[in-house]
Every structure is written in structure tokens, then in C-alpha cells.
């Protein structure tokens, strides 16, 4: 840049200063308002949106689908799309190192590459066009990150549509920009603008198409407990599923009964001071994860047992054991799962069935689990879904499959083989819980507490 140009730039700037504002108070005022707005926004987010933690890290649980912070999602998606390009897609470092590296490099040396003194927007169509397409592409890749690259039926079409939107079209646009800038010279800005807008519209179009045709696969939204009370309750649920048969509901069993291979085995009650005072949390977690192979307790850690417990789940069980049995811990007040039924009371879905199902059935009866497609996540689904949806829950009918299987009567095929086993498959429900299901079905499955309040048990 020659001295005259520089001189001119400085003179122009001086003139702008003449008709400008003061840093204090004019600019500072706006800055302060902005800072205040940000602060308020953050307090609102912290209060109402909160922070969503997942369970504690568990190195053995490799099935976990990693999800980076949202501002790295576009890179994740880009890598996923790039990897399906034939041949080139196998050379991973082009996408992981070369392309991001190039982009960053260009950004870094930008002032030394784009040396022309022109600053007005219309005179800078090329750099603005390149940046525009880049940011637009990042935006769509971020949105697409929620959507599958390979459809659930194995079709590659969504990935192809997305790759067109996120990789091919930007490349074509850049090529077009370069050609236009070289050939049209003076008339280039207008052409670049229209090419850019066209490419942008196509990118949006292909992204939206893929989103409309291939919606995100139903995500497993496993709620995970945060507060101490929730953790203790979760621990109790897990304990009743996994430990109850050997250690008993309150951990007091000293002689195992009814467990094949361990019949009559004498064990120390795990709710005793002997165990709770001598075993600290870390050793307790190890006992549960590794089991006691010599004495017959199976390992429950994910690393040894694919169906097993995650590190977080083991911690919940320990929290349950401590706060329930260890007299050094004061148990916080925990609401019962559902309010106990009065002698003539009829249970409702909202108040009774929903929490019971959540604790005892939902772990298997939700999308993604193999349970005859009987999803128990909503009222309608409990009534109608499942391979035997027309037989599971029938108002006033004792032979409803649900009532039979929770009372220890499997449903048999004509040839005598089991069509539906007893539910839940391991262990049995407490009599009071079975009674809740029983009254609910016989009284016609009232949904709300009000509907239930209009009925009395038993029906006249």
C-alpha cells in the first residue's frame, strides 16, 4: 500500500471523528446496556433453563453416543458427511486436519491477503460471499446434527442430501465465485450476490428436504436423577430390580432362598453396621461392580456385564443403602411413590399408575426396547399399544393380559409355549401394587384423579 493511500485513509478517519461521538459517555452507555442485558439473560437462563448434566462418566459404557458442545456440532456433522464420500472419505485427516486448518489459516492471514484498501460492502462481494456461504453452511450443519446421516432402514439418502447441502453446494458456489470474479471484473459483485443467494437457497432447500423426509430417530430420553432425593429413589428402583432376590427388600436377608445355585447360602445382612461401617463408598462401588465371584454374587458393573449398571447407577444404589440403613445418615423426607389407597378408593392413571409404571415397567416398555412394542409411556399407549394391544388392558375384565402376567400367570400359546412371560420378568410386584393395577383395570381405567373420585370400590 503506497503512502498516499495510507494518507487518504487517515484523512478520511479524521473527518469521521469530527462528526462522530465521544467514547464516554456515548459508546460506554451502549456497552453498559448491552452488558446489563447479557447479565439478565444469563440469570434467566440459569434459573429457568438450568444446567443439564448427564450421569457420571463411565469409561466402560462405550455405547454412549457422544455429543459435543453445540458450537462444535457443525464439525461433527461435517466429519460424518465427509466420511461417506467414496475413496476420499477414507482419508480422515483431510477433513479433521486439512480443511479446518486451511479455514483457520485463511482467517489468520486475511488482512495480509485481502490488502486492497476498499472497505465498502458492494466493493467486497467476493470475501463477503465466501464468508456468507461459510457461515450459512455452518448454521445448517449445526441444525442437521440432530438428524440421522443414515436412515433407520439403512438408506443413505439423508446423508447424500445433507452432503449436497453442506459440502457440494458450498464448493460449487466457491468455484462459481472464483470464475465470476475473474471473468466479469466490474460487473462481478451483482453476479456474486445472485450466485450466493441462489446457492444459499439451495443449501437451505436440500437441508429442509432431508429434515422433512428423515426426521430424527426417536431419542431415548432417559431422565436421570439430580437431587439427593431423586437419587435415593432411583437407587431404590435399581436395588429392587437387581439386588432384591438375594438381599431382600431391606437388605436383611441372612440365608438366601429361591435363587438357583445359592439356595441356603448364609450371607451377612448388608443393612447391618458390620457391613455399612466397614465398607466405605469406594469399596462398596467395587463390590457391586466386580461382585463377589467366589461367594456367588454376580458382577454388576457395565465392564463385566453388558446388561449391568453404569457407574452413576451404582452410586444411586449406594445412596439408597446409606440413607435407608446407615444410622450415620439422616434420610431426607421422601414422598411415597403413590398415596396409599383407601379401602374404597379407586386409583387413577395420573396419581397412581404413572409413577408405578415408571418405576417398575418403563425400563423395558419404551421405544427402542424389545417388549412386544408395548410402550407404557402414555395413557393411550398403556391402553392400546403392543402386539396384544387389544387384549392387554380391557375395562372390567379380569382376563386382561396385564393383570394375568403381573399375578404370576404367563400367557401361553396354543402349543403351550410362553407367549408372554410373567411381569416384571425378575421378581414380583408387591401385593399393594398389584391391587392398584387390579382396581384400576376393573373400574375402567380412570385417567384423572377427578374421574377416579367419582367411583367407589368395589363396583356395586
Amino acid at each position, binding site marked *: 500500500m503506497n503512502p498516499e493511500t495510507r494518507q487518504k485513509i487517515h484523512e478520511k478517519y479524521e473527518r469521521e471523528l469530527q462528526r462522530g461521538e465521544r467514547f464516554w459517555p456515548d459508546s460506554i452507555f451502549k456497552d453498559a446496556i448491552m452488558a446489563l442485558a447479557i447479565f439478565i439473560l444469563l440469570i434467566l437462563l440459569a434459573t429457568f433453563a438450568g444446567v443439564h448434566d448427564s450421569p457420571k*462418566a463411565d469409561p466402560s459404557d462405550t455405547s454412549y453416543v457422544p455429543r459435543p458442545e453445540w*458450537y462444535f456440532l457443525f464439525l461433527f456433522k461435517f*466429519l460424518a458427511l465427509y466420511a461417506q464420500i467414496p475413496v476420499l472419505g477414507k482419508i480422515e485427516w483431510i477433513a479433521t486436519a486439512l480443511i479446518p486448518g486451511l479455514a483457520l489459516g485463511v482467517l489468520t492471514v486475511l*488482512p495480509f491477503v485481502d490488502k486492497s484498501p476498499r472497505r465498502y460492502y458492494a466493493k467486497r462481494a467476493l470475501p463477503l460471499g465466501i464468508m456468507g456461504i461459510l457461515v450459512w453452511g455452518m448454521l445448517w450443519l449445526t441444525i442437521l446434527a440432530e438428524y440421522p446421516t443414515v436412515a433407520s432402514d439403512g438408506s443413505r439418502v439423508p446423508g447424500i442430501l445433507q452432503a449436497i447441502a453442506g459440502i457440494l453446494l458450498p464448493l460449487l458456489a466457491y468455484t462459481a465465485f472464483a470464475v465470476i470474479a475473474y471473468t466479469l471484473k466490474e460487473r462481478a459483485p451483482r453476479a456474486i450476490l445472485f450466485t450466493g443467494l441462489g446457492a444459499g437457497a439451495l443449501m437451505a432447500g436440500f437441508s429442509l428436504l432431508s429434515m422433512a423426509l428423515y426426521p430424527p430417530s426417536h431419542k431415548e430420553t432417559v431422565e436421570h436423577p*439430580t437431587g439427593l432425593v431423586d437419587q435415593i429413589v432411583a437407587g431404590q428402583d435399581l436395588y429392587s430390580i437387581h439386588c432384591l432376590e438375594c438381599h431382600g427388600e431391606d437388605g436383611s436377608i441372612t440365608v438366601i432362598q429361591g435363587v438357583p445355585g445359592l439356595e441356603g447360602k448364609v450371607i451377612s445382612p448388608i443393612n447391618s453396621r458390620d457391613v455399612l461401617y466397614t465398607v466405605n463408598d469406594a469399596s462398596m462401588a467395587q463390590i457391586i461392580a466386580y461382585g463377589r465371584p467366589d461367594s456367588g454374587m454376580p458382577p454388576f458393573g457395565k465392564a463385566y456385564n453388558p446388561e449391568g449398571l453404569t457407574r452413576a447407577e451404582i452410586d444411586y444404589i449406594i445412596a439408597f443403602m446409606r440413607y435407608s440403613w446407615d444410622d450415620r445418615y439422616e434420610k431426607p423426607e421422601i414422598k411415597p411413590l403413590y398415596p396409599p389407597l383407601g379401602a374404597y378408593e379407586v386409583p387413577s392413571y395420573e396419581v397412581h399408575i404413572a409413577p408405578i409404571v415408571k418405576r417398575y415397567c418403563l425400563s423395558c416398555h419404551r421405544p427402542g426396547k424389545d417388549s412386544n412394542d408395548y410402550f407404557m409411556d402414555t395413557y393411550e399407549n398403556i391402553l392400546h399399544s403392543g402386539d396384544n394391544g387389544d387384549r392387554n388392558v380391557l375395562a372390567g375384565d379380569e382376563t386382561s393380559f396385564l393383570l394375568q402376567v403381573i399375578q404370576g400367570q404367563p400367557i401361553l400359546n396354543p402349543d403351550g409355549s410362553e407367549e408372554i412371560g410373567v411381569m416384571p420378568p425378575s421378581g414380583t410386584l408387591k401385593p399393594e401394587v398389584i391391587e392398584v393395577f387390579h382396581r384400576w383395570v376393573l373400574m375402567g381405567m380412570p385417567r384423572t384423579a377427578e374421574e377416579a373420585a367419582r367411583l367407589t370400590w368395589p363396583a356395586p
Partner: protein
Amino acid sequence: MRNAWQTLFAWLDERLGLHSLYQNLLDRPEPRGNWWNTLGSASLFLFLLQVATGIFLTVYYNPSPDHAYDSIQYIMNEVAFGWLIRGIHHWGASLMVLVVFIHMLRTFVTASYKYPRELTWLVGVGLLLLTLGMGFTGYLLPWHQMAYWATTVGTQIAGSVPFVGEFILKALRGGPDLSALTLQRFFAAHIWILPALMFALIGLHLYLVIKHGESHFPDKDD
């Protein structure tokens, strides 16, 4: 008669040079600006807010695989207003990435990186990288599933660089796998190394901004 405040001010001014500070830093002329010009100072505000809330979090946080998760739960459930401070730090990090990025876009669109502000831009790119680095290292600290596996994949990506990838991977993780060493490293980077660099670069950035003045919005003659 001068009141006590004026006397105090005069005394301090003589020794600290308050008046010339005021003239040089605050009472400057500027080209006419608009709300886009607040994004730089908004980044600064967010950075300082992150520093303040971050310091509070280190009081309770414990960077070891056994205790990191529980110490965060403790902050969320037991410490008075811990949830608020952590919430602000969490959302502030996201917002800072967003604001810094838009700030970069605005200086790009107005071509503020051109003569004489090339170095301001260069330092800015450094700041953008550091901001992302803060996000990346901070994400692992709660040691939950999402963080653990995202970082596993993230460091793997860094490890795929030809020739030096293996070295980068080991340097980031402190071994072949994510371990206590990784957490310790990310913690050190997140609370000492990266913030120190950021302080230095922000200082330089601001010096350059004041030295050259903010650029004006270009018109047809530019």
C-alpha cells in the same frame, strides 16, 4: 472552599494521573457507532464474568475422576446460590462463543481488519481460538458421560493429524486413554494456562483498539 472529596481527588490525581487517564481512555472521539460496536465490550464483559464465576466454582470443584462429578452436584444442590453461579458460568460460556464469533463477523463485514488494524484482527483470531479452547477444556470438567465421550472423540480428532497426531493425542490426554491425568491437564489449561494467555491477548487487543480508534462504518467512498 473545596470539599473533602475534591481534595482527595486532587491528591490522588497528582499521584495516579487520573485526569490524563480519563482524557486518554474515556474522553476520546469516536466515529458514529451503533449496537454492532458493543459486541467487543460484550465479549470482554462475558470474559470477566466467566473469570469471576469460575473463581467461585474452583472453591468447591475437585478435579479428580472420583470427586469431580460429586463436587459439581454439591455445588448445584448444597452450596447457597451455587446453582446460579454454575448456571451463569455454563450459559455464559455458550454465549461468549456466540458473541465473540458475531464480533468477528462484524469486524469482517465492515472490513475493520484492513490497514491499520491488521494486528488487531490477528490477535482477535488468537482470542477466538482461546475462547473455543476454554469451551473444549471446560466441557470435560464436570466428568459426566456426555463430557467424557465427547472429549474422547474430540481428542481423537486432534489425534488424526498426520505425523504429529499421535503426539498431540498423548499430550492432550496425558496417556493413551482419558484418565485422571487428562482431567488434571484440562483443569490446569482451563483455569491457568488459557486464561493467562487470554488476559495477555485481550490487553494487547484493547491497546490496539484504543491506539487506532474504532473504525468507522464504510460508506461509498471507502
